């Protein structure tokens, strides 16, 4: 008797999709894995933050996708038109039909400047910048080099967006860069956010808020942008406030892939609705259930940061569950929302944040309790060097699916909780 191996189809070859393909081959070697992507470009996206300041070169950031994907994977190049969930197949724009038994949607999130009136215009990538694309980051490098002082405005359109600490990091690095180039005294540095503080989580917001104050950065909070007026060079909010700029660095609205919406699998921002512990598709309203569909990385609507660390930790949980499913057993592994983010603070230093669904970022040491060597929520040179070194770990260990020695579950060891007792409940549940 011959049996057909189970077919796993992965949509997207970024951090999450690449890790899934590589790990599945290790644990389920007889599975038939196909990965779809529109191109062969894999960028180390944290490098986009560094390129404008010359801290990473474009060559360090860009690689071929295929190079990192296990050769046992069949790679299909094309644009996804839609997922026919009831028919268990994916249709590409060129008409190709791909059948599957299990589907992983890992198509990420994309900046959508077209969603804010006036953002795309003649000044796009000139006076109105972003650092969430390779092209945008390069243009910003050149526009910053030509900057002679004035109002440099860093702006967040709406949440969620990729790497929620990145605009703060950009602000810190810009402050440092302006000082080094003798421009800081001629520049008003402004941070504009729809939030009511520097960051979402209270302890981190306080620490990072202090860091902005120390650097004399003006902070405009609760600012929901309605439009960008490129002629007058101002941002306008729904409550009719105006923020003038000479050089604007914005984080456009982020949205998931349009095919997610066409397939009826997404929320209002085209993120696939999933169970936050298993990443299994969780239909909204009266949509039909499809337990064979999962979404990983930024494409999912997980209530935590859209970040590489979340993709990494959640893929590990997903793979453990997939092995159980393959053997006809129920899934017992649960993702806790663990995120781990370095925050560049300028002057060759960085902070480290470590948090999950239940516990906000706290001060302390990581990963060895009481020792570190990394310090949580405090600036240190070692944190900065670790962030720079992570590019090598990403290309050489993370994407190929080698173990990094970090557990996917967050640990409370070595951390200093504070605030109301409610925040302690997570530590009680530590395994």
């Amino acid at each position, binding site marked *: 008797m011959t049996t057909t191996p189970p077919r796993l189809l992965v949509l997207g070859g970024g951090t999450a999709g690449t890790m899934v393909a590589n790990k599945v081959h290790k644990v389920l070697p007889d599975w038939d894995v196909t990965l779809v992507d529109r191109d062969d470009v894999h960028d180390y996206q944290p490098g986009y933050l560094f390129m404008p300041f010359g801290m990473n070169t474009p060559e360090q950031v860009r690689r071929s996708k295929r190079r990192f994907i296990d050769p046992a994977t069949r790679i299909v190049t094309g644009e996804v038109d839609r997922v026919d969930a009831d028919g268990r197949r994916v249709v590409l724009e060129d008409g190709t039909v791909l059948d599957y038994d299990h589907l992983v949607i890992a198509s990420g999130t994309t900046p959508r400047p077209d969603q804010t009136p006036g953002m795309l215009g003649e000044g796009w990538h000139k006076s109105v910048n972003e650092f969430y694309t390779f092209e945008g980051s390069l243009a910003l490098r050149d526009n910053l080099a030509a900057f002679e002082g004035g109002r440099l405005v860093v702006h967040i359109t709406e*949440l969620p967006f990729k790497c929620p600490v990145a605009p703060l990091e950009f602000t810190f690095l810009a402050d440092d860069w302006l000082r080094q180039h003798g421009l800081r005294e001629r520049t008003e540095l402004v941070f504009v956010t729809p939030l009511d503080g520097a960051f*979402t989580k209270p302890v981190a917001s306080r620490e990072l808020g202090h860091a902005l104050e120390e650097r004399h950065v003006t902070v405009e909070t609760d600012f929901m942008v309605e439009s960008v007026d490129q002629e007058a060079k101002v941002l306008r909010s*729904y409550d009719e406030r105006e923020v003038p700029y000479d050089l604007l660095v914005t984080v456009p609205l982020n949205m998931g892939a349009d095919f997610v919406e066409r397939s009826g699998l997404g929320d209002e921002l085209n993120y696939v609705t999933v169970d936050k512990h298993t990443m299994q598709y969780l239909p909204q309203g009266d949509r039909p259930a499809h337990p064979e569909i999962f979404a990983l990385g930024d494409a999912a609507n997980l209530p935590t940061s859209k970040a590489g660390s979340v993709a990494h930790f959640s893929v590990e949980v997903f793979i453990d569950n997939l092995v159980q499913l393959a053997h006809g057993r129920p899934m017992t592994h649960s993702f806790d929302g663990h995120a781990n983010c370095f925050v560049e603070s300028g002057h060759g230093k960085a902070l480290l944040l470590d948090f999950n669904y239940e516990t906000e970022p706290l001060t302390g040491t990581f990963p060895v309790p009481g020792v570190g060597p990394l310090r949580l929520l405090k600036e240190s040179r070692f944190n900065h060097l670790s962030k720079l070194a992570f590019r090598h770990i990403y290309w050489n260990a993370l994407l190929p699916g080698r173990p990094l020695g970090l557990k996917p579950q967050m640990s409370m060891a070595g951390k200093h909780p504070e605030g109301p007792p409610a925040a302690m409940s997570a530590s009680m549940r530590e395994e």
Partner: protein
Amino acid sequence: MPTTTISGRTLEVNEEGFLVHPDDWTEDLGVELARLIGIEMTEAHWVPIRFLRTDHAAMGETPTLRRVSTQTGIDVKTLFGLFPKKPAKKMAYVAGLPKPKGCV
């Protein structure tokens, strides 16, 4: 948890005054909560507030401003007019729900 007394009822609230238990809420209480933040409820106010209540019951979380706008068809500018300055937060407050999370 602190408590507060509104219309003769003692209610559990968080540090920011949001109801801790969404089930404590009634439409009459919504009117009082709105009054506490300077809003006189009209039918135009009730449309998004009722959506917040049903959506929270169905989804288990408070909808974001964008979700309220796309699902009710009320544009964001109008929501800013009805609940000035901080519509997402104020609507959640009046509807007796936690602040929308969308913020991570």
